[in-house]
Structures are given as structure tokens and as C-alpha cells.
């Protein structure tokens, strides 16, 4: 395992009167795709939001590339090299696909300033974006919005991508397309922390896995080991119970 790019040490998060994270310890190795799994309400999204500074950690420390970012405001965290794709995708529906991309490219003031080679690569990953380049993002399908959200996160080189449930609501063909895109990103040494509930989607991607429950990390290991061990899947993710129920 390579050196960690992101380290969470005993992170607690309170939102309103609720204590959501209870001392999260997590390491995200550089250049790898780490999966954060867990049941609904386990604290996965809260962990990503806390890393981004959208919710403040009430205790503990978050280090990114060796620097303490715990108390930094969200824009400063993004400027340090972290891109965030929220669960609701966060695309700007009134802006066109082109405008969404231009906004995400902080260094570009006009479309001509966008890195053409990188844009060509993104269009190869997600051809639909080229087709709908001048379209308002609000008129795209759910899958296309997800493509745009991820494309926006990689329009400029970032050190770390935080992606929240990219498979949610996607048709199987689009999910397969998304898996291929994440694999290609991983091959380009992009570090990714990906939150996922869909284990069948997740098992095709991850190098290492962390599982959360009740605001804590309850398992850390390789995806290979978790994918082999059905008892562990049943205990940590409730997969067996879901299967029985269905």
C-alpha cells in the first residue's frame, strides 16, 4: 500500500443536536481507489462532507498531503486539490454543460482556456457530454448528470476525488460506463475515495475497503478479502438479510 494522501484521525462531527461521526479513523492511500461502504445512515456521506469542510469536525484531525485541513474553509480545501461529487451530483441545472465545465476549471476564464487534450479525454470517457455541450444541465438524464458531475471534478488535475454514490439510480449500461471511467482514472494514478451502497458496483472497482457503521469505521481491508467472505458481507453490510428479505 502506498503512503496515505488523506488521513482522518478520531474525527467526530455534530450536526445540530446530532452526533453523527464517533471518532472516524481512515487512511486513503495515494494513487488508489478506496471504497467506503456501509448501510444507510452509517455516516459515509457525513464523512465526505466533513472532509470537504461542509460540516465542521467537532474533534479529531484531518490531514491531506501532509497538511492539517481540519479547520480550513471549503474553498481552501478544494483549492488544495480535493474535488467533490456529492450524492445529488450538484450540477447547475440552469447552466449549460459547457458553463458547468468552465466553472469547474478554476484556471480558465473562457472556453478557449480549457485544456483541449484533457477535454478530449473527458469526451472519450463520457461522449454524451460533447453531444449536449450547449444544453442546460438541468435537461440531462440522471446518468448524464452523473457523468457531468464526475467530468467537472476531473476537468483540471486534482489530487483526490471524493465521490458519493455514483451508481445511485443509474441504468446498468450507464453504470458499466461509469465503472470503466473510474478504472481509467485509477490507471492514471488518480486517488479516489468512493462512497457506495451498491456492493456489486463497488466490488468491480476498489483496491481497499473501509466499512462504516454507526459513525465509525468497523472494518478495513482489501476488496478481494471482503468480496470472498460472505459472512463478513452479511455482518457489515447486511447483504444476506437483504437477500433473505427479497
Amino acid at each position, binding site marked *: 500500500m502506498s503512503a496515505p494522501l488523506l488521513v482522518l484521525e478520531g474525527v467526530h462531527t455534530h450536526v445540530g443536536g446530532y452526533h453523527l461521526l464517533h471518532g472516524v479513523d481512515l487512511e486513503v492511500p495515494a494513487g488508489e481507489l478506496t471504497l467506503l461502504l456501509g448501510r444507510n445512515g452509517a455516516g459515509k456521506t457525513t464523512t465526505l462532507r466533513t472532509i470537504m469542510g461542509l460540516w465542521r469536525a467537532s474533534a479529531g484531525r484531518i490531514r491531506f498531503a501532509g497538511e492539517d485541513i481540519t479547520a480550513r474553509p471549503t474553498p481552501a480545501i478544494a483549492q488544495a486539490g480535493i474535488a467533490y461529487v456529492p450524492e445529488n451530483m450538484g450540477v447547475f441545472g*440552469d447552466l449549460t454543460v459547457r*458553463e458547468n465545465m468552465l466553472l469547474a476549471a*478554476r484556471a480558465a476564464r473562457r472556453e478557449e482556456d480549457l485544456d483541449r487534450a484533457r477535454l478530449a479525454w473527458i469526451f472519450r470517457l463520457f461522449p454524451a457530454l460533447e453531444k449536449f455541450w450547449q444544453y442546460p444541465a438541468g435537461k440531462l438524464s440522471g446518468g448524464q448528470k452523473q457523468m457531468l458531475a464526475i467530468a467537472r471534478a476531473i476537468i483540471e488535475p486534482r489530487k483526490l476525488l471524493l465521490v458519493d454514490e455514483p451508481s445511485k439510480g443509474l441504468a446498468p449500461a450507464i453504470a458499466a460506463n461509469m465503472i470503466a471511467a473510474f478504472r481509467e482514472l485509477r490507471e492514471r494514478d488518480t486517488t479516489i475515495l468512493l462512497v457506495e451502497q451498491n456492493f456489486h458496483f463497488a466490488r468491480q472497482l476498489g483496491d481497499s475497503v473501509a466499512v462504516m457503521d454507526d459513525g465509525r469505521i468497523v472494518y478495513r481491508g482489501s476488496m478481494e478479502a471482503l468480496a470472498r467472505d460472505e459472512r463478513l458481507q452479511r455482518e457489515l453490510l447486511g447483504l444476506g438479510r437483504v437477500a433473505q428479505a427479497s
Partner: protein
Amino acid sequence: MSAVGASDAPLAAVPRDWRPVLLVPALAFIALPLVGSTSTWVTLTVAGLAMGLIVFIIASGLTLVFGLMDVLNFGHGVFIAFGAFVATSVLGFMGDWTASQSFAANLAAVFAAMAAGMTVAAAIGWAFERLIVRPVYGSHLRQILITMGGMIVGQELIKVIWGPLQIPLPLPQALRGAFLFGDAAVEKYRLLAVAFGLVVFAVMLLVLNRTKLGLLIRAGVENREMVESLGYPIGRLFVGVFVAGSALAGLGGVLWGLYQQNVVPHIGEQVLVLIFIVIVIGGLGSIGGCFVGALLVGLTATYAGFLAPVVALFSNILLMVAVLLWRPQGLYPVARR
């Protein structure tokens, strides 16, 4: 790798929704047979457009402030009032210029009043945001109470500086009177107000649609958290928009004061209801909607004032109800809302 639309060529842009814009000429043409005389109709229409465009200038900043930071600023009227009162001082000081028969000298005096009114309103807007609005982010009830309180304090300050009485604000010499187009008399100043309003609208469209700053503002209106996650500090953007919106209200105050030809300390309060109607009709946070809404409000108030003075007082409320029955989120709703 396969993907949706992989082999298809890029599609053309989606056509704009022009139906709300068409309401403006539709309203004007419906009014024509009701007014009866074409010349009177032309006079009323130009007056309505002038009023609408002044209201647009004032309301545009407020709608952006609401869209960006979800702030209900009931104190917006104080920027209007300061703009108008500063204009009385500047135009009074430049009495020789305003009394001159030279159109250029008159215009220079009006521009000076506008520049001063905007500067003072912007400075007050900056202080207003820091001292009054910033502590109450996230709480609408507190925002309403404290910004109304801020407006009352501002009005009292105006009384201390300029006195409590109405102050006349006569038009400069060359801007008085009307042009005659056949039998239709169109006041010179109203044409000038229309021109100013259109220039402000064009500049705003240019900034919002053709610059990165404009992109940020439009995106921030829709989802400010995501704008921050992309690495842009929205707090600074908000202060900038708040100050610019206050300056526009100051400009609107100068134009409104000259339109009324007198100013009172509660001049801003008088138009505040119209402004809120405009931003609700337009769609909260939408500049295009604010523009169309302001024109509809200006025309409705003017036609109703002529045709049925009894209903003029609530004609714009009826307009708002009609628009919201058609489009409950306003004419051009912002995606998030």
C-alpha cells in the same frame, strides 16, 4: 467504451422560453382598445416602461441577493432613499448645470448625481451587510425584523441630514417637457429612463452570461454549497453582489426621485412592495424574470391608473396572483427553487 449518444454530433442549444417575454407586448396590445386613443396609449406605454425599468434597476440587486444567500432584505429601500437624497444635494450643488439649456450639461449633472448616489448607496450597503445582515444568515424571521429596523434607522439618519420634509427634485432644464410623435406626447425624461434601464439590463446580461464572475453568480444562486466545493469563496462574492445591488438601488433612487420630482425619507419604502412583487413574479434569483416582471408591473400600474384608478392600488397584486397561477415558481424559476 460505450455511452449515451456516443456517435451523435453535438446538438444545438436549447431554444429560450420566450412565452413570458411575450406577455409584455400582449399586455400592451390588450390595453390599446381599452385606452381607446392611440396617442394616449403611446404616452402611457412609455410611462409604464420607464417606471418598469426603474423598478427593474432597483429590484435586480435584491433578487440576486436573495438568490445567492437566501437573505430577505427588507431594508433595500434605504439604499433607494439615500440615492435619491444624495441626488438632491448634487443637483442642488450643480444648479448652474441643471439650469443650463445645454443637454450635455444637464446630462453631466444627472450622471454626477447618479455616480454620487451609487457610491453612497454602495458604501451604506457594505456597512449594512457587515453590521446588520451578516449576523442573521440562515434565519428569515430575524432577517425581516433586523433589516426593517435597519431601514427605519436609515430613514431617521436621512431626516437628521436632510430634514424630515419633502425635498423637490426638479428635472434639469433640457430634460423637461415632451417630444411629440403625432398626437402622442412622450416625456423626455421617461425616454431617458427607458434608455438607462435598457443599458443596465444589457450590461447585467453581458456580465452574467459572458464572464466567469457572472457564471459564479448564476451558479451561486442555484447551489452555493457546490460553488464553494469547486473552490470559490462565495462569501466574498456575496458581499460584492450585495454592494453592487445597493449601488443599483441607489441609481434607481436617483431615477425614481427625478421621475417623481420630489423625495421624502420613506421614498424607498413606497416602492418596496412593488419590488417584492417584481422579484416574486420573475422567479426568486432570476434577472431575466426580474426584467419581464418589472415591465409587467410598470405597464399594469400605469394602464390601471388611467383606466380604473380604484383598482390601481391592487392591480399589481392581481397581476402577481395571475402569474403565480400560471407559473407558481415565477416566470423564470431558478433550477434549485
